[in-house]
């Protein structure tokens, strides 16, 4: 299982951590849009953006190794598209631009997730009158995410210790079984959560 990205928020104290979540969120979104709107090959501008991010990173006291690790984790999909971009007129320029812009934006979002709690972001969304149903869904998802991941790991371990047959097909079948059990258990838990909500007076 890939758990490496699961706990982005660092429980640290730093000037950046103490900023209100709304400011950080707005700043990050603004920064990302600005970078995407920069003209092609605007290298001085790219450098300035990069410098700004490095400054924020330094102030946030997130260990550089952790940041670097997250930046270097590249998705095969992104690599694939990047390679495809070379196959066109001005391909190399497009490729370079894309690489720099996406790295800058990724860096920015990694900083955001490393210095901001999701629960604070939820508060911001509520303030912005985002539909309550969406906010509730996001809140419940985030609350039970880690629990479900732990349940999944437990089930996987239990399966592994009972399976003596190797081979891809068995691995697929057992992973699929874990997923189906996970859904059934999540569904049952959702019913109990509903009961718990009603028990404290929730009426729709």
């Amino acid at each position, binding site marked *: 299982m890939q758990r490496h990205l699961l706990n982005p928020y660092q429980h640290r104290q730093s000037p950046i951590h103490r900023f209100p979540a709304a400011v950080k969120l707005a700043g990050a979104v603004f920064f990302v849009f600005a970078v995407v709107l920069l003209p092609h090959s605007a290298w001085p501008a790219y450098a300035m953006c990069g410098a700004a991010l490095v400054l924020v990173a330094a102030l946030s006291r997130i260990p550089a190794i952790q940041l670097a690790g997250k930046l270097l984790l590249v998705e095969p999909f992104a690599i694939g598209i990047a390679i495809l971009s070379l196959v066109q007129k001005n391909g190399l320029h497009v490729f370079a631009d894309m690489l720099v812009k996406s790295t800058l934006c990724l860096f920015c979002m990694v900083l955001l997730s490393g210095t901001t709690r999701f*629960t604070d972001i939820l508060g911001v969304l509520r303030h912005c009158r985002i539909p309550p149903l969406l906010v509730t869904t996001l809140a419940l998802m*985030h*609350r039970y995410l*880690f*629990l479900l991941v732990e349940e999944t790991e437990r089930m996987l371990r239990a399966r592994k210790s009972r399976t003596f047959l190797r081979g891809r097909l068995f691995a697929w079948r057992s992973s699929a079984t874990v997923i189906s059990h996970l859904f059934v258990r999540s569904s049952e838990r959702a019913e109990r959560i509903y009961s718990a909500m009603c*028990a*404290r007076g929730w009426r729709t």
Partner: protein
Amino acid sequence: MNALEIANLSYRYPDGTQALRNLTFSVKEGEIVGVIGPNGAGKSTLFLHLNGLLPQRFGEEETVRVFGLPVSEPNLDEIRAAVGLLFQDPDDQLFCPTVREDVAFGPSQMGISDAEISARVTKALQQVGLSEFEDRTPHHLSRGEKRRICLAGVLACNARILVLDEPTSDLDPMTKRDFRALLRTIESTKMISTHDLEFVAELCSRVILLDKGKIVADGPSLELLSDQSLMIAHGLEVPHIIRHLHPH
């Protein structure tokens, strides 16, 4: 007026199994009652009737009364505020993003002012000894802390009857002791279902023994718990603490 009055309560699961058969008992205000019995006895099912979560639709017979109010549609809000039900798995009950929001959940359904809600949250967290936990996320809490927060959640509703379903099932001995001490400091009627007979012996003055949906015995805890033949006949045993005090 009794805190709780149950008269001929029966319940059948959707699949046809009879879960509860003609239960009749009452609980006085301030009593601490332990509900014990083997697995499948119907303890949890009984508790779900105390605040109207079961049955799904109410019939003509008013079989459950809380402080004189029948548990049925028009009274549900009041009853659910008065009956603080703590579920077996605290993760089912701690569904809000932060501790403060969760403890505030109950009061916020009651239509009271924000200032009042804040005050109740602070007081409830103080009562359970977790005042500095307001901004924490539930996921990072220990089992014992989660149970305390759940307790704070129902205290914030000004619950007058605490109904606890297996409150110590996954706690280590020290946490169990602390939780027991905490419960002693809270003055309200309590109904506790548990397999932990030591816990019952130390906390509850009265015990109801449930088996296959029927009340098999109902009386002072020391007397019931030391009745070896009764305990064994219903899949239990005499707790060590009583054996130690009354070696036969």
